[in-house]
């Protein structure tokens, strides 16, 4: 098994179709295949043991991904926001390596030990004209590492999640139908390459034959412009992007992107008001939520378009609630909810989400695998399954607030606060408390022009949940801290709220 199988089949099936473009350069499947082969030849000759890319999205990313696969070395997409110092700590783990980056950065990175820095233009130029390695000369050991993804390392130094060829090809081959996309299908990708969704979307689009349209730096107006300009049919976004797109459209605004038929989202919690507004702003689009982790090669549960519509239109509160779920596990994985002792729990019982399947890696470079002997990976996400098998998230286990011996999920309290019409965004965290161990604290962002007292919001929570869940500290902020991929940075909120007083 090798990711190259996906590109080989695509190139054989539709060589002249455009595979990827970023608005200025584009490659057909045939050109992508040939470029990957030439870049692979260069890689082999260089003696590099890894190919890294430190850049925003561009056609160089899929060329580099498949060149790595062809040459039999791991691909390492890096976060371009990393400082030179942070970068050095990562590159020392992958040396000797070839590092592709933009001209400006190439200049400042010359001194990295064991790292051959290549400017993106030069990399693509050689790939376009160089001689390719023999077709089908890529290694086929399914255990070979395909991709290393360094996680953001909020506790301790960043560690690299290991995705082997068998994980990603299993995921793509079992969930994507080959060549099903039509000539006019195009997927707008605005998530960065160092995010697992960024990698998965490249592979699934290529295997489906769906043209990839890359938007290197997300901005809501640019997204809307590109979506209609490129006649995009599909898009993948993280929830914060969708939120900004809705803001851009304005209250009650409907998007003028007639070609857009399908919007998929994932990578973070989707607030209920945002998805509801999105379904109104894009009335003709199918919405799909994908829940997955880097360690599971992306998606393990899906809330499909039918689920979105029936949840939204239902009188039954249990069905409506499903719009806040992450859907049902995909057929090729098994999801279990387990308690602290590892006992498998039943419907509506809260615990930790465990998952097993061919696409599940759970391994980190140099740290071994977190997979249990039974093949199940502990996700560290809390959640539960309802009677019909819909999966609901309670938030990261690490984010659970323990107040006076009582476990509380921040998500539950956040969802309630979001129901208040003045509240636009909220983060609930635990802060140290002498009396309770931890106390509930909230950072609230209001809608522009809205006004409400902290006490009113605290009472709002008490009415709907109970007093123990009401934030004892509630402060207002202009915005919450998110990283590049739309993940809320709870530790930053925690730091902020530790000293705060309401």
């Amino acid at each position, binding site marked *: 098994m090798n990711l190259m199988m996906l590109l080989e089949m695509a190139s054989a099936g539709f060589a002249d179709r455009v595979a990827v473009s970023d608005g200025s350069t584009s490659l057909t499947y045939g050109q992508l295949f040939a470029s990957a082969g030439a870049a692979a030849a260069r890689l082999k000759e260089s003696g590099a043991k890894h190919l890294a890319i430190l850049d925003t999205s561009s056609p160089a990313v899929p060329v580099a991904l498949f060149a790595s696969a062809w040459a039999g070395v791991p691909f390492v997409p890096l976060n371009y926001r990393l400082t030179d110092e942070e970068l050095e700590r990562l590159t020392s783990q992958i040396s000797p390596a070839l590092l592709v980056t933009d001209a400006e950065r190439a200049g400042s990175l010359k001194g990295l030990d064991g790292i051959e820095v290549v400017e993106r233009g030069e990399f693509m130029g050689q790939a376009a004209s160089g001689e390719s390695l023999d077709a089908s000369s890529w290694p086929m050991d399914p255990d070979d590492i395909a991709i290393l993804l360094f996680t953001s390392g909020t506790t301790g130094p960043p560690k690299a999640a290991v995705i082997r060829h068998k994980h990603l090809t299993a995921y793509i081959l079992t969930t994507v139908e080959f060549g099903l996309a039509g000539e006019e299908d195009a997927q707008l990708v605005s998530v960065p390459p160092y995010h697992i969704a960024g990698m998965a979307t490249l592979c699934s689009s290529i295997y489906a034959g769906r043209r990839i349209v890359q938007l290197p730096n997300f901005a809501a107006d640019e997204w809307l412009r590109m979506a209609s300009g490129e006649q995009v049919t599909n898009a993948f976004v993280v929830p914060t992007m969708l939120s900004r797109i809705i803001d851009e459209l304005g209250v009650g605004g409907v998007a003028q992107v007639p070609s857009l038929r399908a919007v*998929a989202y994932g990578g973070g919690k989707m607030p209920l008001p945002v998805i509801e507004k999105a379904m109104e702003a894009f009335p003709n689009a199918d919405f*799909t939520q994908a829940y997955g982790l880097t360690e599971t090669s992306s998606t393990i549960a899906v809330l499909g378009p039918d689920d979105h519509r029936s949840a939204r239109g239902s009188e039954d509160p249990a069905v409506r609630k499903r719009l806040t779920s992450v859907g049902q596990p995909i057929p090729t994985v098994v999801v279990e909810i387990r308690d602290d002792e590892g006992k498998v729990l039943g419907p509506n019982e809260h615990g930790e989400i465990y998952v097993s399947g061919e696409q599940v890696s759970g391994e980190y470079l140099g740290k071994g695998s977190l997979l249990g002997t039974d093949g199940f990976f502990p996700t560290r996400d809390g959640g539960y399954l309802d009677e019909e098998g819909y999966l609901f998230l309670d938030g990261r286990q690490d984010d659970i607030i323990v107040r006076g011996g009582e476990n509380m999920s921040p998500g539950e309290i956040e969802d309630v606060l979001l129901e208040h019409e003045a509240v636009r965004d909220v983060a609930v965290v635990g802060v140290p408390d002498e009396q309770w161990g931890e106390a509930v604290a909230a950072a609230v962002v209001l809608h522009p022009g809205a006004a409400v007292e902290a006490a009113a919001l605290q009472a709002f929570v008490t009415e709907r949940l109970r007093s123990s869940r009401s934030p004892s500290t509630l402060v207002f902020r202009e915005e919450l801290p998110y990283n590049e991929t739309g993940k809320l940075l709870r530790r930053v909120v925690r730091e902020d709220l530790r000293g705060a007083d309401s």
Partner: protein
Amino acid sequence: MAEIKAGTRLRSAVCDTEVMVVAAPGGGADLTCGGAAMVALGEDPSGGEPAADAAEGTQLGKRYVNEAGDLEVLCTKPGNGSLGAGGQLLAIKEAKPLPSSD
């Protein structure tokens, strides 16, 4: 019965067809293409033509299954022969893709 499992790659002995096994029954299976036993990738095909009753052709990217549903192969390279196992021809598996989620 030939021991095959998910990931095993085979080629036709009498045409260009290549497949990758997606699922196989525990006891293995004897895959044929064009009526002749399939061989490992890399082995030289014996030459010859697909048998007249097994020459419908295979399609790139399609999955083929047996009646029991426990044998499934993905066609990674098309050819003129038809896939079979246990004396029966394999059928194209109906595509029931997940909504595009990536």
